[in-house]
């Protein structure tokens, strides 16, 4: 059919005109709808959107304060802040996510864990243009390689963040603790405002105890930002207050020496300065590298640490609860003397065993055949068990417990040592409450040589030893020595709560100290080998704690069983005898005898502190005349 023929063009025109009119009305109505909508948004709801718009434009950003540094007593840096570089990805700006990730994996060492975490974050709801971290702690090599490839990787950024770093971590991890990423529980606890820009918080040790001091006060800036969060202009700024720099009593040299002395073993050393209670060394061996924990330890690394039979993560110095054994004897001797259960001259016959009555159980002395006639000094020097069995029965459990508690056993007597345990000071009440058993006279006998239920940590033993070194003056153990600037540590240390232990005859202190010197220097002293050839006099007491059982779920080969069933070697002591500069407690797990294993360690520490470090150190100055007096 040809175009235009046989058609009623006029009718078609009229039809079109009608339809066009309908469309005109529709267009008008719909445009009116748009105008009405705009009127609603721009005039009616204008105020609402103005508020929204201002909120959009000006953001308050937090400026995290740099964390306070931690020094040892010689101003050696123990904890610092290091810029750590991490690589982040802004998905909106990335060309192809998979290709980008593949290329990043070629340039960098990206573990499966990193990738999983990244993918998880990618799926979570987030703001557009918010960056997602892919890997933390880039090496300089990796940063350089990234810089080379940067033009091929839009949306990939390297960001810097100040992160805690412990230069001597293997030595200080247990004393200092460490920081880590804030977890959900901590999020509930902290002040959300002050921690607005902070990613890390003290997890243990000094870092945890002085978190508030170290953290500082958050700063703010009002900034105009774009939707990418990029700052266009800083409108107003309140600078953050950096955390306080702390000085600890710790002496890194002594700490290092302690680690060297225990190298290859498991054990703990606590050294206290008796005059101040300052903890000079707090070593738990093996240590670990706390730096791994700061940015988040990998599962395999963590498993390696936590599954290790040597338990490097276990802080033996604060949390290792051992039977004190014979190292409790000096404190018990004080108790026995002061309570009148024994006198300095009292002599008993040691046949090699002890019986409460003639038909009961026999408690053996460590020396078969016995020591014969024994007085207190000899009992200390030789660590005669039977003497102390008798003294214990004579004192009774209540007297013993009341004296021992004055030495800080059964409590956490520390001022600022986070996580210290209180051991166990058994008593009839305790036994009835926890075991539903009466206190048997035999329990008293066991307690007499520091065995039975009694448990104490190396830190508690060191504290009690320092009390003897101080002749009854209490100094609670503490780590904080000073705060840089004009604030005094007393402001932040908890108050001292312990009364001095006053004896009826204060000269008993010297008597017991002298008997401890017999241990080191006497012809029969159990640690005379360790004390030999010293240019100063020292006091000490050896101990041995029996290992009763092995954990059932652990498997050992025969060689190991023999090794792990050996007794723990213990030692407590202080030096010099007069005017003591250092009090120590040492435990070497499965070390065998205290005199052969632990005492030489103490001697080495004494030598180091009193002679080797005294010239440059500020704590342990002993004049040559003092030493000569001691020798004489």
């Amino acid at each position, binding site marked *: *059919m040809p*175009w*235009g023929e*046989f*058609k*009623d*063009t006029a*009718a*078609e*025109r009229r*039809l*079109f*005109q009608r*339809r*066009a009119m309908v*469309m*005109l009305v529709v*267009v*008008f109505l*719909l*445009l009116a*709808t*748009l*105008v009405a*909508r*705009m*009127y609603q*948004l*721009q*005039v009616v*709801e*204008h105020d*609402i*959107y*103005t508020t*929204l*718009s201002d909120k*959009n*434009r000006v953001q308050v950003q937090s400026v995290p304060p740099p964390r306070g540094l931690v020094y040892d007593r010689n101003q050696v840096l123990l904890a610092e802040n290091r810029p750590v570089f991490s690589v982040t990805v802004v998905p909106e700006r990335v060309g192809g996510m998979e290709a980008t990730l593949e290329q990043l994996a070629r340039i960098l060492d990206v573990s499966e864990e990193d990738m999983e975490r990244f993918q998880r974050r990618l799926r979570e*709801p*987030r*703001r*557009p243009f918010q960056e997602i971290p892919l890997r933390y702690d880039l090496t300089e090599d990796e940063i350089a390689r990234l810089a080379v490839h940067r033009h091929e990787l839009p949306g990939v950024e390297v960001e810097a963040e100040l992160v805690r770093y412990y230069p001597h971590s293997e030595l200080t991890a247990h004393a200092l603790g460490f920081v880590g990423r804030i977890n959900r529980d901590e999020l509930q606890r902290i002040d959300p405002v002050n921690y607005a820009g902070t990613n890390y918080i003290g997890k243990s040790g000094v870092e945890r105890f002085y978190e508030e001091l170290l953290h500082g006060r958050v700063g703010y800036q009002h900034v*105009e*930002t*774009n*939707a*990418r969060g990029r700052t*266009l202009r800083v409108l107003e700024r309140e600078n953050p207050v950096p955390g306080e720099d702390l000085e600890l009593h710790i002496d890194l040299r002594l700490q290092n020496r302690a680690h060297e002395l225990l190298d290859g073993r498991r054990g703990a050393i606590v050294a206290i300065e008796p005059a101040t209670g300052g903890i000079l060394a707090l070593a738990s061996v093996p240590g670990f590298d706390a730096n791994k924990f700061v940015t988040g330890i990998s599962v395999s690394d963590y498993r390696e640490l936590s599954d290790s039979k040597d338990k490097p993560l276990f802080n033996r110095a604060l949390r290792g609860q051992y039977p004190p054994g014979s190292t409790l004897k000096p404190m018990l001797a004080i108790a026995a003397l002061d309570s009148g259960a024994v006198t300095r001259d009292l002599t008993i016959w040691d046949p090699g065993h002890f019986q409460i009555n003639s038909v009961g159980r026999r408690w053996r002395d460590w020396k078969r055949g016995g020591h014969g006639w024994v007085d207190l000094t000899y009992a200390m020097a030789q660590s005669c068990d039977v003497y102390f069995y008798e003294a214990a029965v004579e004192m009774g459990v209540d007297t013993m417990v009341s004296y021992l508690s004055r030495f800080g056993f059964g409590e956490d007597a520390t001022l600022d040592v986070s996580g210290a345990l209180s051991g166990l000071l058994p008593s009839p009440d305790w036994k009835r409450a926890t075991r539903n058993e009466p206190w048997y006279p035999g329990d008293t006998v066991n307690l007499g040589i520091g065995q039975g239920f009694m448990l104490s940590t190396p830190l508690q033993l060191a504290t009690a030893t320092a009390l003897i070194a101080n002749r009854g003056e209490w100094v609670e153990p503490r780590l904080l020595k000073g705060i840089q600037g004009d604030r005094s540590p007393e402001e932040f240390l908890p108050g001292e709560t312990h009364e001095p232990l006053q004896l009826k005859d204060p000269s008993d202190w010297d008597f017991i100290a002298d008997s401890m010197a017999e241990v080191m220097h006497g012809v029969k002293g159990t640690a005379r080998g360790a004390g030999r050839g010293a240019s100063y006099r020292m006091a000490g007491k050896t101990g041995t704690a029996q290992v009763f059982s092995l954990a059932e779920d652990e498997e050992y080969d025969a060689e190991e069983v023999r090794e792990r069933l050996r007794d723990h070697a213990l030692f407590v002591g202080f030096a010099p005898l007069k005017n003591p500069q250092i009090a120590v407690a040492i435990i070497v797990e499965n070390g065998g005898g205290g005199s052969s294993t632990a005492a030489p360690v103490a001697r080495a520490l004494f030598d180091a502190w009193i002679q080797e470090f005294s010239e440059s150190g500020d704590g342990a100055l002993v004049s040559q005349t003092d030493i000569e007096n001691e020798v004489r």
Partner: protein
Amino acid sequence: MATREVFSSTASNPLGRPRGLWSALHVDPILLLLLLILVSGGLFVLYSGADRNFDVVKAQGLRFGVAFIVMLVFAQLDPSVFRRWAPWLYGLGLVGLIAVLVVGVGAKGAQRWLALPGLPRFQPSELMKLVVPMMAAWYLSRHFLPPRLSRIGVGLAIVLLPMVLIVKQPDLGTSLLVGMAGLFVVFFAGMSWKLISAFFVMVSVAAPVMWFFGMRDYQKQRVLTLLDPQSDPLGAGWNIIQSKTAIGSGGFDGKGWLQGTQSHLEFLPESHTDFIVAVLAEEFGFIGVLALLSVYFLIILRCLFISVTAQDSFSRLVAGALTMTFFIYIFVNVGMVSGLLPVVGVPLPLVSYGGTSTVTLMAAFGILMSIHTHRRMITA
């Protein structure tokens, strides 16, 4: 044949009516003036929307230059040329759409472009915005209007076929625009109101079916976000909340040119492309929006006048459909930016930054001018 020669004559002026310069150029001065006002005003807004990037404005200006030339070229062609070419172009367009599905190049998960060796890249779907109404008008105007039911069926099939191919790319926005252009032809041709009602019933039944079987997740997401943008304020609802904030904070008279904080602080996404009307609304306020919509309304009025005064059914149907397509662009874009409609990726015609749609739209205005300036003066 003689009739046709008279109809298609452009060289002669049988009535000897004085013809001005505009007629000689085959340009409608009123429409041209309105378009120039729109385009130049749009470039000002674009400068702000593109964050004072003059390169963007230059590129867009260049694009308008090309588009104006295309418009002039189309205006020179007699409407009968479009009519004769319509079936061939339609066939070519279908081949192009199929080719896109087979060998097309894509971006953002959709294949829309055809890169033929020796030719510039182009989108066959963009071509179909013009060709589909032409084809429908060609088919329906061959017969008496209003068309019989069977012819309406064929007409709808002509519209539906390219729609399906475009949806497959997938490009829902363009598919709907192409479909609307074709449907307007059927409407203008005189589809009975009864049928129109039936059609709407069908659509309302088809919509849920589409929802469950036809739509991709991101398309569903857009609809859901529209219904409740607050549900995902930092994700999918971000665009709508930010554009509403930009518009609302503009107030009655706006914050002033280049003073919009939302767009310049990059809170507003796509501020120089699909969401440019939010920039205008923020900086020029309700007044600016009124001005823009007024210019659009005047353009539509002029185009509807051209349609009504066109001299044959084909021209009327094509002109009317292209006019209404232009309006759909406006309504969908402004509706989406102001949160009335889902975000479907339709640019604001002749203002948003972007090449293809600008050229297509100006070609459409060229066709309208051609229709208007090639009238025989006998029956006018």
